[in-house]
């Protein structure tokens, strides 16, 4: 997917003035509320008209004020998933799912109802009315409805806001499956850094109606190391849990991590760990109350404000820690140096 936007739109006191060109299959539009993300999305979907500018998707012009081109929403091939599912209340789940499918010319249909139902696990809901669905089911049906119209781009406007954490991760995994099974490019709009990191490869960062930067979710997360109180959040994918003395032992690459949170039998886990909860030692401390002492090699250093971020290579897996500048000097941290990262078992927060 290649998206070019160069638009200006005034709405009351707010002015959106965007110019970017982005390529990728999983792109994020990131910014705090009021930064113009949703306006940008509406302009792209054709739900709102820019005052001036140009929008081009995969080489096709969707809007061009100079050439007086403005494709109506139904001809843009942009599927929209809203924050609240906005299912048609007078139609059944099947009726909702097939709404766009029926309106897509047969030769453009790439996805059929059966395969979609398999991917989203909604086969059992087909004949239900939409008002009896739970929040997660509604959002899945809304995603399915957009996907069945075989869009060129799936535009998701804060689709996970308002769902609880378990549901959020469930929907994220469904979205991943949609992306893999049907190879539909996605543009995710969200104010959540975690969602950006889990669901996108490149990020357009917006602030008060302007483009701040075009970056990667990883870069965005590292930049926050200096400003955010929580520091940098390491997202670790673990597997093979084992209970031992009331603690959980997970496999992480070729290492093992011990933590207080855990659950038997669920195999893979996604765990958060703040860079602030990692203590670095020059030599192995031999004995410590912390349950994790991981030998690793310093990969790189990056300075943000008064902090120094330390990228650690732990047998192929990456961990980001942080120290103050003086500590970095005293420990003589430099790329290539062997070091020990010490982490308490209680420092991990299990997401899934």
């Amino acid at each position, binding site marked *: 997917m290649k998206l070019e936007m160069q638009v200006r739109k005034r709405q009351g006191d707010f002015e959106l003035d965007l110019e970017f060109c982005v390529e990728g299959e999983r792109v994020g539009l990131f910014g705090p509320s009021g930064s113009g993300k949703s306006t940008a999305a509406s302009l792209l*979907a*054709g*739900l709102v008209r820019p005052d001036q500018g140009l929008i081009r998707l995969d080489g096709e012009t969707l809007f061009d004020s100079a050439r007086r081109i403005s494709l*109506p*929403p*139904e001809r*843009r091939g*942009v*599927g*929209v998933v*809203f924050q*609240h599912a*906005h299912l*048609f*209340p*007078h139609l*059944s789940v099947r009726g909702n799912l097939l*709404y*766009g499918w029926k*309106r*897509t010319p047969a030769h453009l249909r790439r996805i059929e109802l059966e395969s979609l139902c398999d991917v989203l696990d909604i086969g059992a809901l087909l004949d*239900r*009315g939409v*008002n009896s669905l739970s929040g997660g089911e509604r959002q899945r049906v809304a995603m399915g*409805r*957009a996907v069945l*119209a075989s869009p060129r781009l799936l535009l998701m406007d804060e689709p996970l806001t308002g769902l609880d954490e378990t549901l959020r991760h469930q929907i994220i995994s469904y979205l991943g499956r949609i992306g893999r099974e049907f190879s539909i490019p996605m543009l995710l709009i969200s104010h959540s850094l975690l969602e950006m990191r889990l669901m996108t490869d490149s990020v357009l960062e917006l602030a008060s109606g302007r483009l701040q930067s075009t970056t990667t979710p990883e870069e965005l997360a590292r930049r926050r190391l200096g400003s955010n109180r929580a520091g940098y959040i390491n997202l670790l994918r673990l597997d093979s849990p084992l209970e031992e003395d009331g603690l959980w032992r997970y496999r992480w690459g070729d290492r093992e991590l011990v933590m207080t949170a855990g659950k038997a039998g669920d195999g893979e886990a996604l765990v958060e760990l703040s860079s602030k909860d990692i203590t670095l030692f020059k030599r192995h401390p031999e004995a410590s109350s912390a349950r994790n002492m991981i030998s690793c090699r310093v990969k790189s250093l990056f300075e943000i404000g008064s902090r120094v971020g330390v990228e650690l290579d732990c047998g192929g897996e990456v961990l980001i820690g942080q120290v103050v500048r003086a500590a970095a000097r005293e420990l003589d941290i430099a790329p290539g140096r062997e070091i020990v990262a010490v982490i308490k078992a209680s420092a991990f927060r299990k997401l899934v």
Partner: protein
Amino acid sequence: MPNLNPQDYQAIWLSFQVATCATLLSVPLGFAMAYFLAFSRIPGKSLIDGLINLPLVLPPVVVGYLLLLGFGDRGFFAPLLRALDLRIIFTMKGAVLASMVVGFPLLVRALRIGMEEIDPRLILASRSLGARWWDCLLSVIVPLSLRPLLAGMTLMFARSLGEFGATIILAGNIPGLTQTIPLAIYDYTNTPGGDSMALTLCLVSIVLSLLVLLVSDRLALRVRKGVTR
């Protein structure tokens, strides 16, 4: 209680015909007008809204008189009516027209409020899923407007059953031709010894109106069930 005579039955049947015709004929225009008022964003909308609602606040006699001026033999529409070989005044068509004008604001108002409650994002969703505006109108807006439409039709039907002032001026009070229930009651109250007949027709009127409300409620329930399932 005295029995109803054939003329009374005629009045009841005529009332029913007039109310039905007026309501059904108003639905397409009422729907279009409500759609326009609910979704368009052009200046001067409130003026149009005011004009439509005017018959609601004007004395019906005034409405009837203005209609008489417009549709009478020397009225503004007289050449058009002559060309179409149509006669409005002192006919049942006049009674229908009077009911239409007086009841129209009720229909539009109910429909418009209902349409304004439709979440605009549903319309956007429909458009982004490939529906053109007319497709969206038929597949989303009309089905979601059925309940307000029913409410508006009920109000209008009931209002037409009771229409008096505009009807008597435009269509007159001709038994068997334009005499509806209210006009018949008016006649009886002006006739010595007609009190009991007037009362009987009043009862008929009450029963009819109640029936309309009950039927409408039942229908609304079914529409709602259809919506939520």
